[in-house]
C-alpha cells in the first residue's frame, strides 16, 4: 500500500505544527490555488509505513551483499555518529572561514590522507560521487591539453571491460570513445592499445584491478604507451579497495584519479547514494583540480585553513556543485580513516584479497567455472555460468534470483559485458569465513537444484515480497507517478 492510500483529508502529524503566518504582501499572481497533494497521515502511520518498507530491503546490515565493483563492506556506526554531531549538522556551507577552522582542518587532514594512499600531489573532495569524480578527472585532462594549446586531441581510450560511466563521462567532456579489447588472460590487449593510440589520444581511462577481477600486470607498459603519444592516464578508483595500502595509483603511472568514498571508505551506499568521489592529481594536473578544496597556510606558526576558489586557482575546471560537495559524507570517511589508521589501511587490501581468492578457489572446487582460472583474484572475481546455462538452461539471472531465497544478495550479474553469464563477486574484508562458506554452500545447493529441477531455480525468488517483476510492462506502460483511480 502506498503512503497516499493511507491518507485521509484533515489528518496530520500534529506535533509537526508550526505557527504559520499570513502571506500579506505577496501578490495573488504568485500563489498556488490548491494545496499540494501530499499525504495526510499521522506520525505513527508515517513511522510504521517507512519502517515496514525498510524491511523489504536487503542491506549490508541484514545480509551478505557481494555486489562486485561496489565494495559493500560494513559501514561503521561511529562514522555516522561523527557526521551527526550538532557541530557537523548545523554548520552552514557559506559560514566564514574565520568561524570554520575546525571543520576545514578535518577536510584538510582527509585530503592529506587520501593524497598519501593514492600517491598523488593534491586532492579535491568536491565531486559528489564516482561519476562526477570521473567527469572532473577527464575535464582536467582536457584543461591540461587546452592550456598547452594541444587542442587536436579528440579521443579517450577505454578498455571494453570498463564501467559504463567511463565512456559516458568521456562523451560529456566532449571526447570520442575508442574501445580497446581485453586479452584472454584478462589483461588489456596491449597490441590493440598500441594501434589505438596516436596524436588524437587525449588519455586513457582504466580501472586496476580491472572489472575482470585481475590486476593489470602490464600497467607500466600501458602507461608508457599512452604517455609516449602525449596522452594522460585516468584511474577509475572504483576498485581501490583491492590495493588500499598495497599499491598507490600514482606509482602505477596514473596522472589523475577519483575515489569512491562510499565504497573504499565505507560511508554508506544509502540505497543509491549519497556517495563522494574526490579527485587526486599529480603535479601536472594539480592546477586544474575542481574548486573548492582546502588549503593550509601558516600564520605565526599556527595553521590557517582557507578555501581554494577560482581566484587562487585560475586554471581550475571550476565548481561542480553549489557548495563543497557532500561534506557530511567526507566527514564519515574522515572518521573511518582515523579508525583504520596506517596499519588498518594496509590490511583492508590484504583481507579483501584473501576473502575473494578463498571464495574463488572453493567455488571452482565445487564445479563452477572461473572466467580467469589462471589468474590470482584480486578483491573480486568472475564466475561464468555459461556451462550451466547451456547444459541446464539455468542462467546467471536465475542463480541470482535463487540466491535471494537463500538470504544472500546476488553478486553483480552480466557485468563486465565481455564475459557471458557472469557473476562478479566481491566479498570485502569485513565478512567472516563462516559467511563466505555459507554463500558457497548456497551456490552448491542451487547448482544441485538446477540439475534436479531447473524450473525451481528459474521461478525464483519465492520468499520475497514480490516474485520476478514485469520489466517490459514497466517500460511500455510507464507508471512513474501515482494517480488514484477515478471515483
Amino acid at each position, binding site marked *: 500500500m502506498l503512503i497516499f492510500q493511507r491518507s485521509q483529508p484533515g489528518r496530520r502529524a500534529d506535533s509537526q505544527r508550526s505557527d504559520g503566518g499570513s502571506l500579506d504582501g505577496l501578490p495573488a499572481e504568485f500563489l498556488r490555488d490548491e494545496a499540494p497533494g501530499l499525504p495526510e497521515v499521522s506520525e505513527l502511520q508515517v513511522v510504521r509505513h517507512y519502517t515496514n518498507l525498510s524491511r523489504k*530491503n536487503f542491506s549490508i546490515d541484514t545480509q551478505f551483499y557481494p555486489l562486485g565493483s561496489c565494495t559493500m563492506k560494513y559501514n561503521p556506526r561511529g562514522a555516522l555518529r561523527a557526521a551527526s554531531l550538532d557541530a557537523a549538522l*548545523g554548520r552552514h556551507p557559506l559560514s566564514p572561514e574565520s*568561524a570554520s577552522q575546525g571543520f576545514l582542518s578535518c577536510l584538510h587532514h582527509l585530503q592529506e590522507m587520501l593524497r598519501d594512499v593514492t600517491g598523488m600531489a593534491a586532492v579535491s573532495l568536491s565531486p559528489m560521487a564516482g561519476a562526477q569524480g570521473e567527469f572532473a578527472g577527464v575535464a582536467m585532462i582536457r584543461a591540461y591539453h587546452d592550456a598547452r594549446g594541444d587542442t587536436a586531441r579528440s579521443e579517450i581510450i577505454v578498455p571494453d571491460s570498463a564501467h559504463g560511466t567511463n565512456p559516458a563521462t568521456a562523451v560529456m567532456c566532449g571526447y570520442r570513445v575508442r574501445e580497446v579489447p581485453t586479452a584472454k588472460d584478462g589483461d588489456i590487449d596491449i597490441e590493440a592499445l598500441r594501434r589505438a593510440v596516436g596524436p588524437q589520444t587525449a588519455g586513457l581511462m582504466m580501472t586496476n584491478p580491472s572489472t575482470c577481477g585481475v590486476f593489470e600486470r602490464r600497467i607500466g607498459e600501458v602507461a608508457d604507451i599512452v604517455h609516449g603519444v602525449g596522452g594522460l592516464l585516468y584511474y577509475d578508483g572504483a576498485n581501490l579497495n583491492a590495493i588500499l595500502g598495497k599499491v598507490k595509483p600514482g606509482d602505477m603511472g596514473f596522472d589523475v584519479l577519483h575515489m569512491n568514498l562510499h565504497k573504499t571508505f565505507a560511508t554508506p551506499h544509502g540505497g543509491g547514494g549519497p556517495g563522494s568521489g574526490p579527485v587526486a592529481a599529480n603535479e601536472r594536473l594539480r592546477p586544474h583540480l575542481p574548486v573548492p578544496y582546502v588549503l593550509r597556510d601558516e600564520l605565526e606558526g599556527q595553521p590557517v585553513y582557507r578555501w581554494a576558489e577560482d581566484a587562487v586557482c585560475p586554471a581550475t575546471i571550476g565548481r561542480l556543485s553549489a557548495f*563543497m560537495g557532500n561534506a557530511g559524507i567526507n566527514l564519515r570517511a574522515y*572518521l573511518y580513516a582515523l*579508525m583504520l589508521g*596506517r596499519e588498518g589501511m594496509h590490511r583492508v587490501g590484504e583481507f579483501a584479497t584473501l576473502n575473494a581468492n578463498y571464495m574463488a578457489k572453493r567455488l571452482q572446487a565445487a564445479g563452477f567455472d572461473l572466467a580467469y582460472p589462471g589468474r590470482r583474484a584480486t578483491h573480486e572475481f568472475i564466475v561464468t555460468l555459461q556451462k550451466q546455462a547451456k547444459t541446464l538452461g539455468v542462467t546467471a539471472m536465475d542463480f541470482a534470483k535463487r540466491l535471494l531465497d537463500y538470504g544472500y544478495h546476488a553478486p553483480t550479474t552480466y557485468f563486465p559485458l565481455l564475459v557471458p553469464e557472469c557473476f562478479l563477486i566481491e566479498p570485502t574484508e569485513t565478512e567472516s569465513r563462516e559467511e563466505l562458506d555459507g554463500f558457497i554452500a548456497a551456490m552448491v545447493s542451487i547448482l544441485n537444484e538446477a540439475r534436479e529441477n531447473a524450473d525451481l531455480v528459474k521461478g525464483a525468488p519465492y520468499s*520475497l515480497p514480490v516474485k520476478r517483476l514485469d520489466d517490459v510492462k514497466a517500460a511500455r506502460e510507464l507508471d512513474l507517478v501515482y494517480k488514484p483511480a477515478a471515483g
Partner: protein
Amino acid sequence: MPFIPHTDEDVRIMLDALGADSIEALFDEIPAPMRAGRLQFVPEGRSERDAVAEVRRRLEQDPALTCFAGAGAYDHYVPAAVWDIATRGEFMTAYTPYQAEASQGTLQLLYEYQTMMARLTGMDVSNASLYDGASALAEAVLMAVRAQRKAGSRRILLAGSVHPNYRATVASIVCSQEIPIDTLVFCESSGRVEPAALQSHADTGYAALVIQSPNFFGCLEQVDVLTDWAHERDMLVIAVVNPMTLAVLKPPGKWGAGGADIVVGDGQPLGLPLSSGGPYFGFMCARQGLVRQMPGRIIGRTVDLDRREGFALTLQAREQHIRRSKATSNICTNQGLAVTAATIYLSLVGPQGLQEVARASYRRAAELATALAAIDGVRVHFSAPRFHEVVLHLPADAAMVVDRLAQRGVLAGVPLGAWFPGMENCLLSCATEQRSVEDIRHFAAVLGEELAEAPAC
C-alpha cells in the same frame, strides 16, 4: 584490525585452501616496483571513542552560530522521525536497487517520492534524484539541448538572477559540449528580470530559458511573462525552484499558459540538515514528453509474475550501465538516502505542515527585513516582492560585517561582493520558521552595534 573479523586460525585455514604461504603471496602478480611502502600521512589507527572525540574536538572549535544565511541552504526544523527511520540499516546500507525483488522498500519509497515531487511542482514526471540543485540544473540544460536537437539551437539563455554557484556549475559541466550560454540580465533596481531585458534576445534562437524563482536574491520573478515569452519562441523553460516555497507559490507546471518544461532545484529544505553543503539532493521533474531524455534513475510501478504490485528501475536504456557512451548522463550513484529523508519529511509535515513552514519563513523574513532596515544606514536593496530572503545594503563592507558578527554568535548572511562586483556592501540574509522574534531582535541589536563602530564606506 578494524572491522576485519579473521582470527589467526581463519587465516591459516583460508591460506591452506589456497595453497599459499602468506597473504602477501596473493599479491604476486603485482610488479614489485609498484608495491607501496609505509603510509606517511596516515596516523596510527584509533578506537571509535577516540576518533569520534577527535572529530568533535575539531568541529567544536568553531563557534555555534544563529543562522541567518540562506543562499541555497536553509535552516529548517527536521522532525526526529526523519533521520531515525532514514538511518535504519535497511535503507542506509543497501545500494542501487538492481535486484528489484530484494529492494522493494527503497523502490516503493522512490516511487512515492517521484509522486510527491511531481505534485509539488505541478509536473508529470520526476526522476529519483541527482546530486544537488546546481548539478541538476546543468543536467537540465543538457537535457533541453537533447530535446531540441531537431530545432537546431544549442544556445541557452540563463537569467543573471540564478544562484551564481549554479551558473558556475552549469558552465563547468556543459563547457565541452559546444553549448553557448548567454546571460539575461536582472534589473539592478528591482532585483529580478524585467521584460525590457528580453528585447535584445528576442531574435536569437535559443534552446531554453532558465529562470529561478524565488531567485538568488529572494525575489519573485515574473514567471508567467517569462514563460510565455520563451514558449512563443519555441524555447523550453527550465525552472529552478525551492520545493519548500511551492507549498504556497504557484507550481512551475502552471507558469504562464503552458507551464515550465523542466523543473530542477535542491531538495535540502525538505528535511536535510545544513551539514556544510551536503549531502543534499537535486530533483528534476518534467513534462511527460521529455521523460526519455531525463538523466538518472527512474522507478516504475509494474506487476510480478502473480500480478501483484511491485516496483522496478525502468527506462534503463537511457543509462550509462546499458547505453555507455550514448547514455543521457554519466550519473550512477545519486542521493538515495537524502531522498529517503525527504520522502519521510514530506509525509510527516503533509500539505498543511509544509504550508506552515513556508508561511512562517515568509513572515519571519519580512520581520527580519523590517528590523534590519530600521538600523541607521541599512536599507532593503531591491524592490521586487520577496519570499524568505532579502538583500540588505549596509553602510560597511558586508564580508567584514559577517566576520565580526560571527565572533558574536550570529551568522548574518552571505556577502555578495565576491559574486557581484559593486555589491560589496550587500548582504543576503534569510529567516526560516526556526528563527524567533528574539533571534531577530538580537541580530538587529548586534548589527546596529557593529555598524556604529565600523568605519563607514
